[in-house]
């Protein structure tokens, strides 16, 4: 068992509060990804867990033990750095076994352990090389190996793939995923790349300005973002937002009027919004359709981006807003064409005047469970995933 629990964690540099009270439960064998824009505090939070930064206030628990004042090496964690931070004067084997050397383990045992880990990571032929003679991907693997050797309770990754080129990044991502599968250990991973977050995570923690905006499975964040920030941050291209007016609130859904006088009904719960309120409609580019049969809006194409498989149209609609529409790769749309855009209420998101999402009437079936491939450990975890969206900064505590 290795769990990490954060309770009201704060970090203040002189007068500048970087982390403004974070509560988080990381369960055993969970792959948790901290994601957010630069400067959101995600790396600081990771470094506080690692023990490289002091915790100003709050509690950090690993396996239920308070770790605030325990030195980094005794917390049972291992970290992989963005720059790999390999020791340039040591061979791969020495790099990986350095922690054992410091711990006073005999040379044969050290080498044996390094060889074992090298076998897992396919580093065996490189054991006697120095880091300077390795490629980026190999260095990254050595850095992971150095963490593996320590047999940690929790792995910490600080943007480990951001120094690799695109194709290698995809490959390493798959390897990391496989590693998590085979090791079954708890991992905390920091990234600004939402594709890494979506593909690797069991649970994503979206941070902004030192505050947790939302915690949930990747599809939960995608289908049920809690506020405008999360909605805009998760998904690529970004979600389109449109300022609308509420015209009617029923149990089955809320009806809003778009700038072009069209109305659509979004199946959300009747909560804070009243008829006549201003609201924000959110719709992802992949949910918009170019369809002449029953168009909701007409718009003018400003830019066409063709990726081959799909085409992104930047469409200026009535009211002056620009929508990104993801459409077929074979779309014949040209710049300055007038195109009909169809919005379906069932896939739209609605946010109130404060930017908080109005909960959907029905939850998306895939967002009910965690990552489909990862089996659920207990009923309690399932409960939690249900519960989470209704509390903003409070995550239910797990029974120890």
């Amino acid at each position, binding site marked *: 068992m290795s769990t990490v629990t954060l309770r009201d964690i704060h970090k203040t540099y002189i007068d500048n509060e970087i982390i403004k009270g974070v509560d988080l439960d990381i369960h055993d064998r969970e792959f948790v990804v901290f994601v957010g824009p630069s400067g959101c505090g995600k790396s600081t939070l990771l470094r506080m867990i*690692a023990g*490289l930064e002091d915790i100003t206030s709050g509690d950090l628990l690993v396996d239920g033990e308070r770790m605030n004042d325990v030195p980094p090496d005794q917390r049972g964690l291992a970290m992989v750095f963005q*720059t790999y931070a390999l*020791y*340039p004067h040591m061979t791969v084997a020495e790099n990986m076994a350095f922690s054992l050397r410091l711990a006073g383990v005999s040379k044969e045992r050290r080498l044996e352990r390094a060889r074992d880990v090298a076998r897992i990571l396919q580093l065996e032929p490189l054991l006697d090389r120095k880091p300077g003679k390795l490629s980026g991907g190999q260095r990254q693997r050595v850095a992971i190996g150095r963490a593996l050797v320590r047999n940690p309770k929790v792995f910490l990754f600080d943007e480990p793939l951001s120094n690799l080129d695109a194709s290698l990044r995809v490959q390493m991502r798959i390897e990391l995923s496989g590693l998590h599968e085979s090791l079954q250990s708890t991992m905390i991973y920091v990234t600004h790349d939402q594709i890494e977050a979506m593909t690797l995570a069991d649970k994503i923690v979206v941070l902004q300005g030192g505050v947790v905006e939302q915690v949930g499975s990747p599809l939960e964040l995608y289908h049920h973002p809690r506020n405008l920030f999360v909605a805009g941050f998760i998904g690529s291209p970004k979600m389109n937002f449109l300022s609308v007016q509420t015209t009617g609130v029923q149990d089955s859904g809320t009806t809003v009027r778009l700038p072009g006088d069209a109305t659509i009904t979004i199946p959300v719960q009747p909560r804070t919004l009243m008829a006549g309120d201003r609201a924000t409609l959110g719709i992802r580019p992949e949910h918009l359709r170019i369809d002449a049969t029953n168009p909701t809006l007409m718009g003018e194409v400003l830019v066409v981006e063709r990726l081959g498989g799909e085409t992104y149209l930047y469409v200026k609609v009535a009211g002056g807003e620009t929508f990104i529409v993801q459409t077929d790769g074979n779309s014949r749309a040209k710049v300055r064409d007038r195109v009909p855009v169809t919005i379906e209420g069932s896939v739209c998101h609605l946010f109130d005047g404060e930017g908080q999402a109005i909960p959907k009437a029905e939850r998306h079936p895939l967002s009910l469970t965690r990552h489909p491939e990862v089996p659920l450990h207990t009923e309690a975890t399932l409960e939690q995933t249900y519960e989470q969206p209704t509390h903003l900064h409070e995550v239910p505590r797990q029974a120890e």
Partner: protein
Amino acid sequence: MTSSVATRPQQPPPARARSHRSIPARLLVAPSVILLVLWMVVPLAMAIWFAFQRYNLLIPDNREFVGFANFAYILTDPTLWISIGITMILVVSVLAITIGLGTVLAVLFNQEFPGRGVARVLAISPFFVMPTVSALIWKNMLMHPVNGLFAQITRGLGLGAIDWFADFPLLAIIIIVAWQWLPFSLLILLTAIQSLDTDQMEAARMDGASAMQLFRFVVLPHLNRAIAVVAMIETIFFLTIFAEIFVTTGGGPGLATTNLAYYIYLKALLEFDVGGASAGGLIAVVLANIVAIFLMRSVARNLDT
């Protein structure tokens, strides 16, 4: 298009054209080459020439070729061997002090503390004092048995005064030279420490390294190269220490502080034996080269990895 370029047979440019092109290039580098030749080769050639001559300034007309007689005389002169020994003691001990203390100071000056900027400037300033002046300061203001600060302090404590240049002449010289050169190694090692990746330090901390282990396994290996460079540059200068000895002890008492440079000076300008001094100079050149080869090897090995 690329493939057609790649498969085209590579024809070497005609030899004549190449030599034509390189003539102006040679002309352009000529001034610096000539200057170097004048600067280095001419004095060396003259030293070699004089080394094979009997040439005493007191009887300048009595000049003749004497073969290896100067070398034979010098090499059998016990003073030479004493001076070589003293040169070695001087070089090694000052190197040890400047690099050892320089590394420690570099680590300290890399820490955050109030007034660090001022402290750094002060620590580096001895390097700007010229050798004769610093030797005079140490001789008259610090180590003087009557007026010196050290004597005042020890006498104030009732311990009596030490006459540094009479009792510990070589140690006194070592202290003066080390004081002058400590800033140099400090400066270079400090910049080297600042180029150390903080992630590496943090990784080592996560691996469980204590402060001493961090220094031993991460900082010191990182400084290896800088230390080798400092050692090489300092050795070149320490082999020829002169002003400090000239100003303070004059090579004495006896031969206690006569190093090779001072020995050559004694030969040439006190005994007026130009031939012998030149032979001594050549021995110094050979010695410096032997040391340099070893140092270059170690530095080159360090630069490799």
